């Protein structure tokens, strides 16, 4: 009986495994396949899954498209700067939350929670107004600042969860040996917390890389437009017949960094997501 049941469960798990793999990878395979279809093929209508005559012309075209390469640069620059700054601020805050007793600790955590759930679109109007006044509209800092604000909750939660697991005694030992609170933080906690910080950085980067609402609202030209925004405005000459293959190619290219990060750090990302994340 028991043996039969485990057998049945194993088969179920196998089927589940195949289904999950299909679910996750099939749409990715679809855009990859689409990216190798020629422009002529999609213009004439090409409902089959695989390209008739695979071509790399789309990749050549997209790499030669200055709007796209510029958007890619903007995306990398803005996401990386926002990630680094956000993680620095979040590390300080999370350290205080996990390790120190101070008034308003609960308030900070509630605030972070509230901001994680904040409807970003609600800010588009007032931010648009403020940013045009301050000259931040259509600039890198104009996106970096709100990206930092919206990734801080995620980073603070993830990090304070990691920080709670760091052994107290080490910090106290350092303090007994004459280190100040600050030194204990820098010399003892930072090395121990580095993996957590790294995880928070990945989740933050994903958020910034993915962000769309602010990217289309607070930019107006390619000088600061990120890839998602650029792609949504890239309709080509005929609005009724979008350049399917080229958009698919752009999709594949912006997905590559995500796949690389996921391949390298999957364990860390899962740990981070399940230990205090809010969704990027």
């Amino acid at each position, binding site marked *: 009986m028991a043996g039969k049941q485990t057998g049945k469960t194993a088969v179920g798990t196998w089927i*589940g495994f195949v289904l999950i793999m299909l679910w996750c990878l099939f749409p990715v395979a679809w855009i990859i396949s689409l990216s190798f279809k020629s422009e002529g093929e999609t213009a004439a209508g090409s409902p089959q899954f695989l390209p008739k005559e695979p071509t790399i012309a789309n990749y050549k075209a997209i790499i030669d498209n200055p709007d796209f390469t510029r958007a890619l640069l903007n995306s990398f620059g803005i996401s990386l700067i926002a990630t680094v700054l956000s993680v620095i601020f979040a590390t300080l805050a999370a350290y205080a939350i996990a390790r120190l007793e101070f008034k308003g600790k609960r308030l900070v955590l509630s605030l972070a929670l509230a901001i994680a759930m904040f409807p970003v679109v609600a800010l588009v109007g007032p931010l648009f107004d403020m940013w045009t006044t301050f000259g931040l509209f259509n600039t890198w800092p104009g996106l970096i600042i709100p990206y930092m604000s919206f990734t801080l909750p995620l980073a603070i939660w993830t990090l304070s969860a*990691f920080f709670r697991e760091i052994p107290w005694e080490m910090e106290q030992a350092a303090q007994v040996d004459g280190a100040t609170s600050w030194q204990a933080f820098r010399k003892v906690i930072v090395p121990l917390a580095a993996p957590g910080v790294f995880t928070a950085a990945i989740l933050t980067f994903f958020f910034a890389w993915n962000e769309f609402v602010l990217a289309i609202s607070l930019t107006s030209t390619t000088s600061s437009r990120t890839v998602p925004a650029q792609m949504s405005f890239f309709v080509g000459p005929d609005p009724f017949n979008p350049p399917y293959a080229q958009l698919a190619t752009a999709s594949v290219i912006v997905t590559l960094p995500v796949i690389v990060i996921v391949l390298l750090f999957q364990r860390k990302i899962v740990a981070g997501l399940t230990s205090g994340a809010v969704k990027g």
Partner: protein
Amino acid sequence: MSTTVAPETDKAGQEHRKGGKPVASDRSSAENRLGLKLVAPAVVLMLLVTAWPMIQALYLSLFRYRLTAPDDRAFVGIDNYLTILSDDQFWKSTGTTLLIMVVTVAVELVIGFAFAMVMHRIVFARGLMRTSILIPYGIITVVSAFAWQFAFSLNNGFVNSWFNWLPWIADDTNWFGDYPHAMFAIMVSEIWKTTPFMALLLLAGLAQVSEDMLEAAKVDGATWWQRLTKVILPNMRAAIMVAVLFRALDAYRIFDNIFVMTKGAEGTQSISFLTYRQVIEQMQLGLGSAMSVLLFLSVLLLAWLIVKLFRVDLAQARGEG
């Protein structure tokens, strides 16, 4: 799976520490000051981009103010709110948004749970599976929207030709030509992208269900279904509720998929999309700000309702959500 200490225990631990070794008051006030100093930059930054613009929106919402006609700005009191609340489009968009939220979260909960069960049980290829499941999570929503838009496309999509044996799908089904079809396509993209997140949160909850308890239930002769409904689900209630809360609020803000896939055509505009159009496309800062305030309030109300109705344990959420 990383285990985290719930804040209550954490606090208790700290109190215990203090109880065991009395702390001098200047030491604790120094700690207090350091704590405030460390959180200050993050707090200021979070408020700068949310609270301050929200106050600004509250103020602007009381004016008739269009960016294209700045001289025509005039105080109109709550007129903007009345205009919106008596507008058909506003309520239709709210209905559409709620429909998307309820359907996607319900479907994701079921599929996500099945995924979590498989990932929990599986003994082989764990890394491969984790990697794969993170791809939809990490992929840009705009890319997901394009991928599904093209899949459902009339001339270039495979959906019609693959599924034309289903009675309601024909070779010439136009998935973006009417409300139900377009909503279906939008929901597919949303569900595909966010189910992995749901699955991972549920997996963390599943890991907390005690194996001993399951074994005991098995010995007592509980069927598979009884074990699921009487042991597993009640024991991961907190994780489920947290996942529902986060996903529901996230789905309520749906924007990217609609922007790319339909541009709000066929009545598919969500409340976020309507607000965006008022502000950015029509430059109606007064009316748009009023919509922003209403959107913000509705999210608050929704969060409150979910927390109250399902009694979400937010303290535990901080540990595992």
